[in-house]
Structure formats: structure tokens, C-alpha cells
């Protein structure tokens, strides 16, 4: 199984890395993003101080997760909402499947939510005969294309406008009145309005769960989040348990931080707080409000003191944009819900080291991700720890283990090291074109092999 996933990764990585048009599209998107983020950061009086503050708040929340989650739950219940604790994907899916069946739900609209991708919610709902419509524009486009989001914030980073025109003309021909950005947006808007006003249930994620008020915070740029959560008669929220923050006032730092590192905005266009179902005195909002708190491997990660801080992640996507690997192989190659550095760190914890360890090796450990993370997750170091865990827990192939032993043995003695150097260089001179060297020589020339080592130069004349 390991080999299959890893081989598939190599195959797709090669496809994408050699596809110069793809590389150009993604570069353009990320260059645009970088420029926006630089502007966004300049609006902070002290961006690094804000980052440190976010880190500390998340540290507090994650290290007292039990207390803040129960506080959140109690506050939701007080206002007539429901809270369900789901240990895994199946429990989470079943809760909403049963709810939909009990309430006669035929159509669902969804705001963007990575956690529902994580639990493969849409296929389960569709299997039960429910029509599911993604309403974030990017998510809508990838749904029409029957593919997963390419990026956790920018689902269609890999597509050009021409591709979207072609898609809309095929899928929603009656709504398309022109090819301009405005006309394309209007076409999607027409199609999505019909979905909003015919849906029985709205599903959303949550950017933050606020413990002291029992509210969820959602940010979107298209207003689709508000329509999903206020028009249908039932609103169901899916959120990972790590999403909780202690206080409403913490949003004063987190909202601008998420907007800045996510898209370079000062604030996302629509920042919404939702506190529960419609109250007796209110004239809009859903009749029912359900929050599903998903564990799905997170409490195991919580127990790992070395890597607990991975739960700080606010899914801003900055590490994907910063990653030179991601920029060359793109989001789909990872074949995980969460791609890029955070995905390579997190996925082995959520879905098993045996199958996903290769992702922790698919990094040059350049550490650029660490420098952009708004909650200061030490991502490249966690990749190193994942690698160590993989060697300890998933037995590497015997040839690799033997090779490492031999390497160590030769390095443990200067005489053996000298000998290994001489033999190695002689082999390289003799067999420079050998197939065994293809991993290097396929893309690069071999260096010329010097006659002398430094230690020989030193012995002869002090390397003068």
C-alpha cells in the first residue's frame, strides 16, 4: 500500500513538475498572493507581535482544550443549539445523514469547509439521494469538475479563466451571458441563488469556535456563508475540535491575521458570528442549529507533546503558497485533503504513518513554511520528527537500513572514511554514466571528481 501511494505521488509529481503551463498558472497566482500579503502585513503596527499573540492564544486553547470545548458546548446548548461529539468521520457523517432523513431534507447548500472534505461528506449525502451544492465559487467550480479542491483557501488556483468559461458553458449554459469576469460571476450567482432558496439544510464549517460566547465565526468573501447559514431551515456546522479559541475578543487579532495570511486582505469581506437557531424575537435564521465537533485523530495528536502545536493551524493556506514543492507539484498531487506543508505534517497523524510517510520526505526542509505560519507551527521540524517516527514505527526497507548502518560504520572512523571516499570517487570516475546515478544525472550534470581530498591537501602543505 505504501509503495502504491508513494509511486502514484512520484508519477503525478513528475507530470505536474514538467508541465510548464501549470507551473506558470500557479506561480502567477502565488506571486499575486505574495504582493497582497506584503500589503496586508504592512497594515499591522507590529505583525510579528500579532503573530506571537495568535501563537499564545492557540497555545492556551490547545493546552486546555477540554475546558474550552465544554464551555463552548454549554453556551451553545443554552441558546437552544445541539452539540454532537464525533469520534471519527463515520460518526460525523452518520449524525447528519440521520438528521437529514428525519427532517426530510432533499437539498443541501454548503459553505466552504475543509473538514467536510476530510470526512468525505458529499459522497455520503449524495448516496442517500440528497442533492448537495457547494456555494463558494471556487468550490462550486471544482464540484462541477468532479475534482477535489486544489488548495485549502484557493480551490481553483490551478485553473485559468478560459477553463472556467468552457466549464460553465457546458454545465450551466442558460446562466452564462458572457465571458468577462463579471459575467462569469453573475452566471454562478444565478445558479447558486436557485440553490440557496430551495435548500432544506445549510452546512458550514467554522473558522473559529468561541468558547466564552458559544458562537461560531465564519469568514467568506462572497457572502455565501451567510446565505447557507441563514436561509435554510436547518444549519449544521462541522468543526475540528482544535478550532476553539477562548474569548470573543481574540477575534480582534485572529480575523485580521487569517485574512492577511490567507489572502492578503485586511479583513475578509464577510465576517459572520452565529450564536444558534432563530430566537423567538428574531425574524430570520434557521429553526435548528447543530454543531458537530470532530476528533478524527486530533486527540491522538494532542497527546503527542512534540507535535501538539500542529493543532494550532487555522487553515490559512500560507504554508502552501510559501512552499517551493507545492509551487511545482500543485495541490492534487498530494492526494490528501490537506496538501502542502501542513498536509505533509498532519496527514500521517490523521490517516497513518505507514501510508503517508513519503509526504514527510517530499520536502527539501527549506523551512519557508515556518516563517509564514501565523500561529508559528514549526512545520519543517515536525517533518523531521515524522521521518524519525517513520523509521521507528514503519520498518524501512532492509537495503536502506543496511546502507545507513554501513554509512555510519564508515563514518565512525577517520581511516574508514578516507577509504570510503577513495572507493566512492573511483567508482564515480569509472561509472559516472551508470543507471544507478540516474536520480542525480537525469536533471543535472555530475560534478568533476577531484584528485585530492582536503585532508590530503592539508597533509601535503597545509592546503596552501
Amino acid at each position, binding site marked *: 500500500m505504501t509503495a502504491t501511494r508513494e509511486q502514484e505521488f512520484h508519477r503525478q509529481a513528475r507530470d505536474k513538475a514538467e508541465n510548464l503551463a501549470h507551473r506558470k498558472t500557479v506561480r502567477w497566482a502565488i506571486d499575486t498572493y505574495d504582493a497582497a500579503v506584503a500589503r496586508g502585513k504592512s497594515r499591522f503596527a507590529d505583525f510579528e507581535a500579532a503573530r506571537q499573540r495568535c501563537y499564545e492564544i492557540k497555545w492556551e486553547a490547545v493546552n486546555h482544550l477540554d475546558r474550552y470545548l465544554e464551555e463552548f458546548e454549554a453556551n451553545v446548548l443554552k441558546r437552544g443549539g445541539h452539540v454532537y461529539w464525533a469520534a471519527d468521520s463515520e460518526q460525523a457523517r452518520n449524525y447528519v445523514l440521520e438528521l437529514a432523513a428525519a427532517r426530510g431534507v432533499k437539498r443541501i447548500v454548503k459553505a466552504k469547509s475543509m473538514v467536510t472534505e476530510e470526512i468525505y461528506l458529499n459522497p455520503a449525502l449524495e448516496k442517500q439521494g440528497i442533492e448537495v451544492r457547494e456555494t463558494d465559487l471556487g468550490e462550486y467550480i471544482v464540484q462541477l469538475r468532479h475534482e477535489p479542491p486544489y488548495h485549502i483557501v484557493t480551490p481553483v488556483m490551478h485553473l485559468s479563466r478560459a477553463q472556467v468559461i468552457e466549464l460553465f458553458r457546458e454545465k450551466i449554459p442558460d446562466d452564462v451571458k458572457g465571458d468577462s469576469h463579471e459575467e462569469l460571476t453573475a452566471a454562478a450567482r444565478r445558479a447558486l441563488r436557485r440553490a440557496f432558496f430551495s435548500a432544506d439544510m445549510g452546512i458550514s464549517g467554522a473558522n473559529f469556535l468561541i468558547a466564552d460566547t458559544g458562537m461560531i465565526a465564519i469568514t467568506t468573501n462572497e457572502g455565501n456563508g451567510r446565505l447557507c447559514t441563514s436561509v435554510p431551515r436547518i444549519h449544521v456546522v462541522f468543526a475540528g475540535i482544535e478550532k476553539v479559541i477562548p474569548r470573543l475578543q481574540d477575534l480582534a487579532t485572529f480575523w485580521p491575521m487569517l485574512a492577511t495570511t490567507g489572502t492578503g486582505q485586511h479583513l475578509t469581506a464577510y465576517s459572520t458570528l452565529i450564536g444558534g437557531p432563530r430566537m423567538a424575537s428574531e425574524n430570520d435564521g434557521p429553526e435548528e442549529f447543530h454543531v458537530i465537533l470532530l476528533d478524527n485523530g486530533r486527540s491522538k495528536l494532542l497527546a503527542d507533546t512534540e507535535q501538539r502545536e500542529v493543532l494550532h493551524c487555522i487553515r490559512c493556506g500560507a504554508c502552501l503558497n510559501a512552499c517551493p514543492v507545492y509551487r511545482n507539484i500543485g495541490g492534487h498531487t498530494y492526494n490528501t485533503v490537506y496538501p502542502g506543508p501542513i498536509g505533509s505534517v498532519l496527514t500521517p497523524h490523521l490517516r497513518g504513518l505507514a501510508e503517508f510517510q513519503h509526504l514527510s520526505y517530499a520536502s527539501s526542509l527549506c523551512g519557508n513554511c515556518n516563517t509564514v505560519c501565523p500561529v508559528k507551527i514549526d512545520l519543517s521540524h515536525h517533518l523531521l520528527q515524522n521521518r524519525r517516527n517513520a523509521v521507528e514505527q514503519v520498518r524501512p526497507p532492509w537495503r536502506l537500513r543496511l546502507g545507513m548502518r554501513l554509512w555510519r560504520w564508515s563514518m565512525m572512523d577517520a581511516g574508514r572514511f578516507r577509504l570510503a571516499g577513495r572507493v566512492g570517487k573511483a567508482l564515480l570516475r569509472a561509472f559516472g554514466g551508470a543507471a544507478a546515478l540516474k536520480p542525480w544525472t537525469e536533471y543535472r550534470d555530475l560534478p568533476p571528481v577531484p584528485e585530492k581530498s582536503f*585532508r590530503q591537501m592539508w597533509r601535503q602543505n597545509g592546503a596552501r
Partner: protein
Amino acid sequence: MPQTITLFIPCFVDQFVPEVAADMVTVLRRLGYELRYPEEQTCCGQPAFNAGFWDEARPLAERFVRVFRLAETIVCPSGSCTTMVRCFYPELLSSSPLRGEVAALGKRVFEFSEFLVDVAKVSDVGATFPHKVAYHDSCHLLRELNIRQQPRELLRHVKGLELVELNRSDECCGFGGMFAVKFPEISGAMGDVKAGHVEASGADFVAACDPSCLLHMEGILRRKGARVRTIHLASILASPAAATTDRAGQAGTAQPAMAAPGDEGGR
């Protein structure tokens, strides 16, 4: 101010690019330092550490601590190997009987450019190198050791050298140790992107402080048929003031990091 420097010459520098170490030696001698080279040294253990084989890396790290425990000032021509000792040894040796020595050792190991600018307080080593040079920020050097200005400062003081900006100079070149051969398709693409920036800069040379990045970049540039060559900072600084030739590396051992025998250094 130290009088004696102990050389930490990474294993692959010793074997594959000894001229980089020799050039560092030239510069340090010119500044009047006594040099020591403990011939017992081999490898710091980073390849095994990065591969996840911490049990194989640990004895090498312990060996390194023992070999260098009496050295007061250690200088290394690689940001990555310096990082291994300063930043990763504390974690790797956290349950070793040598753990007490590790933090102090990390403070005595310096990357070459860091040593010159921050410790020796030298910006002008009296070198001449009449070429356009672009500087590439190697990842460990930049993000683990926070060394950004020191190499640039040294380059700015080289006579005749024109320092040109490299677009995205801090983007990884794609080497990454074993990554380069474990994921050649990704490493190759990253190298290709870097080579594109290097060529667009109009430089004659791309300089860096890490011989491993340079080996990879040189291999990529040669494969592309590019005219730009790579060179280690030490090799630029070793070019003596007297040299007036526009062919780099004619004097001393200052040669492009990978100049082949018979290759005319530079252009």
C-alpha cells in the same frame, strides 16, 4: 578575538569540493589566524538525521562533540552543517550523556561569513573579483542561522565585484540532501526555477555559502547549457587583491566551485 581557529570541513567538502575548504583556509590565513584541522573529523550526521535515522546519526553527533570539545572557535564553510551542530544537536542529543556540552559547542561553531563579519569584524578581506555576482540565500543559513546580510556585506567589499539582485533569492534551489535523489523530479523542477532566476539576473556567477546547493545548481545550469557558473563565497574572497585578470580563478585556488580540469574558470 580568537587567535586560533579549528576547521570544521564537512565530509562532502573534504571529498568533492576540497578547493572550497582550501579557499577558506587562504582567507583565514590572510587575516592572520592560526589554523587547526582535526583529522579525526568525518561527518556531522546530518544525512542520517534528515533521513529519520536518528539512532544512526546520534553516535556521529557524539563523535563530533568529542572531536571538537577542546576547540575554542570552530569555522565551517557550510551553513547547513553549522545548523546541524548548533540547531539540531540539542534535540538529537537531548538524552545523551554529552547533552551538557552541546549548547556551548553550538555557540562556538560559526559559519564562515558569520565568523568574518560578526566575530572577526571584517568586511573587506582584500579580495578582487571583477565579475557580476548574484547571491543565493541557502535555506538553513538563512532561516535557521538568520544569516542574510553577512555574505552580502563581504561581497560588497570585494574590489571590482558587482552584486546583482536575484529574484526570489531566498527560494530553495531544490537540493535538500537526500531529497535531491529521492524526489529528483521535484528537486529538478525547483532547480530549474532557480536557474531561471539566476540566468535572468544577468550575473556571471551565482554565489552561496553552501557547497551542496552549489553542486546541485551547477549541475542544473550546466545541463541547461547556461553560461552562468556557481562559486562559493570563500572562493571569491580568496581571490587576491593583486589579481587583475578577468578570468576568475587564475590566481590562487579561487576557482568556481565545480570548475572541471581544463575548464577555463568562469567565462
